[in-house]
């Protein structure tokens, strides 16, 4: 093979990937960026006139700040809960289940629902959390409460439940992977050197699991920040997110304001992800 062809080969191999990313990621982002500076004609079209009005509208509206507050609230709550649950489940599987085969079996048990529809998994809370649902029926039957609890379904509570239900797996998988590679002798050495079990956790296991935690956090935060679907269905229309508001704009063909809002959201998500990426070398972590 000629030298020239050999150096071009990796590029040829990467070409299909680029052939997807260029028209379906880079170009659309540029289009959205461009649209955010255009003037709407009030009828779903756009006039080729440069304006900053769309951004002024986004930053000027009190609604924007409310939406971000609500979205960030959901993101932080979901992140904290999925991290808490995901971390302890990964720790349990890696360090406390002694039979390796059993641990892998239990791990797979956690991943199975990932292969089924998210939407279906979300509506599956209806028979449980509804006003006449199973949870209320049991609580009323046992005399704990007199009236059915209304906040269980179509509320912020239900939104968080649905998020945690869907996204904990995104924490478990990377943390499980990172933890599996921790040399157990480091933990034993810490214990032999007099560390309590809690100190071994805090000073050895958590730092060594950092990369998995970072990777999981990126997925969970990016998904919640970009979601509108769970919020819309599970809050029963009571709550909104940045993207659900954006979706309403699109519904009435308000493209330029929606585009400006999208650009701001994109900037926020990129900022969040790059802050996390600073703490971890994802590429090396994956190739380890």
């Amino acid at each position, binding site marked *: 093979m000629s030298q020239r062809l050999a150096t071009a080969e990796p590029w040829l191999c990467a070409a299909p990937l680029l052939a997807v990313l260029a028209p*379906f990621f880079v170009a659309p982002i540029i289009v959205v960026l461009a649209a955010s500076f255009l003037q709407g004609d009030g009828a779903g079209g756009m006039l080729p006139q440069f304006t900053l009005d769309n951004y002024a509208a986004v930053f000027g509206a009190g609604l924007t700040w409310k939406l971000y507050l609500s979205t960030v609230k959901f993101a932080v709550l979901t992140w904290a809960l999925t991290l808490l649950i995901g971390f302890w489940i990964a720790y349990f599987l890696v360090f406390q289940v002694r039979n390796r085969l059993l641990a892998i079996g239990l791990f797979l048990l956690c991943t199975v629902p990932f292969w*089924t529809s998210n939407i279906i998994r979300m509506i*599956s809370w209806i028979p*449980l959390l509804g006003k006449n649902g199973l949870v209320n029926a049991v609580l009323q039957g046992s005399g704990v409460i007199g009236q059915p609890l209304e906040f269980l379904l179509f509320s912020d509570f239900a939104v968080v439940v649905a998020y945690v239900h869907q996204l*904990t797996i995104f924490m478990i998988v990377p943390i499980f992977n990172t933890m599996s590679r921790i040399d157990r002798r480091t933990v034993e050495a810490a214990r032999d050197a007099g560390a309590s079990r809690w100190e071994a956790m805090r000073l050895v296991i958590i730092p060594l699991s950092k990369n998995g935690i970072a990777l999981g956090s990126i997925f969970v935060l990016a998904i919640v920040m970009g979601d509108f679907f769970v919020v819309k269905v599970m809050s029963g229309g009571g709550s909104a997110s940045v993207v659900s508001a*954006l979706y309403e704009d*699109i519904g009435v063909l308000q493209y330029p304001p929606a585009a400006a809002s999208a650009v701001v959201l994109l900037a926020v998500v990129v900022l969040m*992800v790059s802050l996390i990426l600073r703490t971890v070398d994802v590429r090396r972590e994956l*190739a380890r």
Partner: protein
Amino acid sequence: MNLDATRRPWTFWVLAALFAAYVLALYGPMLCIYVLSFQDVRGGLVFPMKGLATHWFVDLFTQVRTGDVRGGFERSITLALVVTVLTVLGSFLAALAFRRGFKGDGVVFYLMIGSLVAPGLVLGIGIGLLFQWLGLEASWTTSALGAHLSWTLPFGVLVMFAVMARFDRAWEEAARDLGATRWQTTRLVIVPILAPGLLAVALFGFTLSYDEFSRTLQTTGGLNTLPLEIWSMTLNVTSPSLYALGTVTTVASFAIIGACLAVIAVIQKRRT
């Protein structure tokens, strides 16, 4: 101080309880809707169960008000299969490229991360507008296909990174030393060794596409994929038909995973 090494610490039982609760919360709600989908005509959205019949499954595929479930189902399966094939090929080639390294691979890597974390609806709107400006018609076979690939392909490449990390280059070098051409090395050594990893990529590609919603919404054109049909059903339909659809899609997912796992098992068996 616990001198008995085989005795489990108290935290084991706490975490075991947490794990059990998690699995229960994971499967419990889904099992509920599978059970409730087999009610008869009197059935509602909550327990108690009313009768035992397949009424809502028939309803699902025959009623107009439940939408074009059959069409959505067929489109989603077709699209997912095409996405799967392209994802496997694309991520395998890209993984080879990243392994050798090339000028600008860092930029391409961050583009991939960007494509993964970008809010799906935003990307969908961008693709929709792009098609509109270019005078092309959005359709599930073009714009939605691209939108799905912008999500499954980077995901597949990341999985391939992890798969490639466990690949021993010595095998490849041995093949070359024995006189194999590059093509023969790829076909007879690299691909067979990576086959289980490639199947894992296929499994991810299929599921992510089959279940994709937010990137599809603005890019599918006039004909809906299944998740979009389910979405509009959640807004309009308040009968156990919804649950019947849940049962049907889950069975379809599991049939496909089962087939994939069976292929992996056969490959592993032939090796030993």
